[in-house]
């Protein structure tokens, strides 16, 4: 019975059906299935299938994003039950991500957040035009492993350096890795400002994040 349910859960992720994924999570709770089992033996299997299909070029970005959304919908349903049981999902790491103050470019940053979340990171996406003080406070509050800072303009790109300095000032410089991204960002800029990681696209960003966590 639960095997069949796990297969349906995986399929809901593969199909990118968030409503079905959430319904199946309700069913699992009603049937007394351990939510961690539902995630690890059900949903994650679907995430892996989509990830593999994507890597070999058979699946496209919308399928990856929709799988991520379906996963999020399932986890949201399961989370209260996890908390009640006092168990916790093992995550790859905690990431706070934002587009810097003065810059409202959203899509690349959102995509990176979605991909990281689908890959198994705990992601706090703070949105766009985020003041540095808010960003670093959040990083401290959630005990972030990685802060991802996006900028699309050469004029706002300099704020990425300010974020690194602010983290240093708070004594978080050694603890928190900083990833930078956005169209004008290059590897030499990353090196110049002393950031830890950089990628030109969302899929690459996930790999960099995994490497930074020693799980690449």
């Amino acid at each position, binding site marked *: 019975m639960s095997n069949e349910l796990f297969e349906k859960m995986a399929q809901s992720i593969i199909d990118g059906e968030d409503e079905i994924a959430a319904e199946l999570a309700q069913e699992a709770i009603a049937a007394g299935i351990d939510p961690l089992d539902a995630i690890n033996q059900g949903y994650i299997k679907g995430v892996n299938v989509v990830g593999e299909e994507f890597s070999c070029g058979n699946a496209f970005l*919308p399928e990856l994003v929709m799988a991520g959304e379906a996963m999020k919908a399932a986890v949201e349903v399961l989370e209260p039950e996890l908390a009640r049981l006092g168990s916790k999902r093992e995550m790859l790491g905690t990431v706070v991500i934002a587009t810097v103050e003065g810059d409202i470019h959203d899509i690349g940053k959102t995509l990176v957040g979605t991909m990281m979340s689908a890959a198994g990171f705990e992601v706090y996406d703070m949105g766009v035009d985020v003041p540095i003080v808010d960003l670093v406070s959040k990083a401290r509050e959630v005990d972030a492993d990685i802060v991802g800072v996006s900028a699309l303009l050469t004029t706002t790109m300099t704020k990425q350096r300010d974020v690194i300095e602010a983290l240093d000032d708070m004594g978080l410089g050694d603890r928190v890795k900083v990833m930078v991204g956005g169209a004008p960002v290059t590897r030499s800029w990353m090196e110049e400002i002393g950031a830890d990681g950089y990628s030109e696209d969302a899929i690459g960003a996930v790999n960099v994040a995994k490497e930074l966590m020693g799980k690449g």
Partner: protein
Amino acid sequence: MSSKIKSITDPKLSLDILTKEELDKIHEATLQIIENTGVRFPSERALAIWEAHGAEVDHDSQVVKVTGEVIEEALKQAPPAYPLAARNPEQDLPLDGNHVFLGTDGCGVQVQDLENGDIRTSKLQDVADIARVADSLEEIAFHWVAVSAQDYPPESRGLHELKVIWENSTKHIQTESIYTVAEAKAAVEMATVLAGSREALRERPLLSIMQCTAPPLGHDGGSLDAALISAEAGLPVGFMTMTSCLTTAPATLAGNLAVGNAEVISAAALIQLAYPGAPFFYAAAQTASDPRTGAYTGGGPEDFLFGAATNKLADYYKLPLSMGSFATGAKWPNWQAGIENSLSTFMASVVMSDMLLGAGLLHGSRIFSFEQLLMDCEIFDIVHKMMQGIEVNEETLALDAVHAVGPGGNYLAQKHSRRHMRDIWLPKYFDRRTYEEWDQKKDDGRDWAREKARQVLQNHEPEPLDPKIVKEFERIIRSVEEEA
């Protein structure tokens, strides 16, 4: 591998390159040329046919002058639509005005070696290899003899070439390399063996024959005789003009069109007078000579305009068209090759030329390159996508998705996106990687195309020919060689 053939069909794009009045003027000029200036037909058989139909024939100069009425009446006999048949009937090609099919090119004399990149003299094995790669490509609908089998004797070379192409592919062959009486008879015999009988071949012509004109205003004797033998057997026959502004045609584009048109439609009329109703196609690859050197250019804006204009002429006479496109003048697959091949192919396609020629050849149809062949297929693929135009309806306007996303956000998680994401064209040989990835490898589409060609040559197994048919082919070729 799939035996499907990708063709341009049901186009949403169009181009009015010549008005009805302009076409009438070109037609009138053409008839005046044929009637007053004349066209040279250096074949006793052809001259006898003309004479029997009331033409003015000068046997010394072999120039024929004939009235417009005779030409117009003869052209009415030509069928407006017919199929080119293939060994695999699923690969038959309807020449019906609603399909653009891509073929390889001919007839190169050198090959860029796939292993070491060297440019070397072409051999029969190259003809076989090119046919095998083309067999695997859905964009390639039919073969020309892409390179010359220079390791075989001239008197039977064209037949060896046909044999290895049929051994390596189930697709239609349109040969431009049969231009003697002996070879034409043997080619018809080979096609008859393959079809099973004369009647079967007439019903489904597995071979079509393309002859070149001898501009300005002339034909080659062997070509005329070979064409008449082929037409008698029911094989589709075409004549290609390659009139070149400044050297073999007037410097002006309209003058070039009229001279080339006189060559092609006079040949079409001859074939119809001899065999009324024989399938005929217009063929052309007009160009402009370089005014500094007189050299053949292999591409330029004049060529692109001719590419679109000629199908208007062929349509005027209700004849299918085999149009030279691709076949860049560039020496290697570079930016010039990309520009010339894209524009020539787009212009010939937008007017729905029935057959496009030229995939795979460089340096003005002299050097064959496997890389270029595969990249040319990608160009055809792009034009194929463009010709579908923009579909406008409730589903494609996507108002539900627009409303669901609202201002801000993105469309990636929309079911509408998932339904249509596979409509978005994907390249095989465009570099869409990150800069870093490119920077590490510094490779490009050429490298990927070369690798792909190597894979195909290693893995693609064409459907074999019946050994009995191969034996018959060998017997026919031997008899031509013994007579020579």
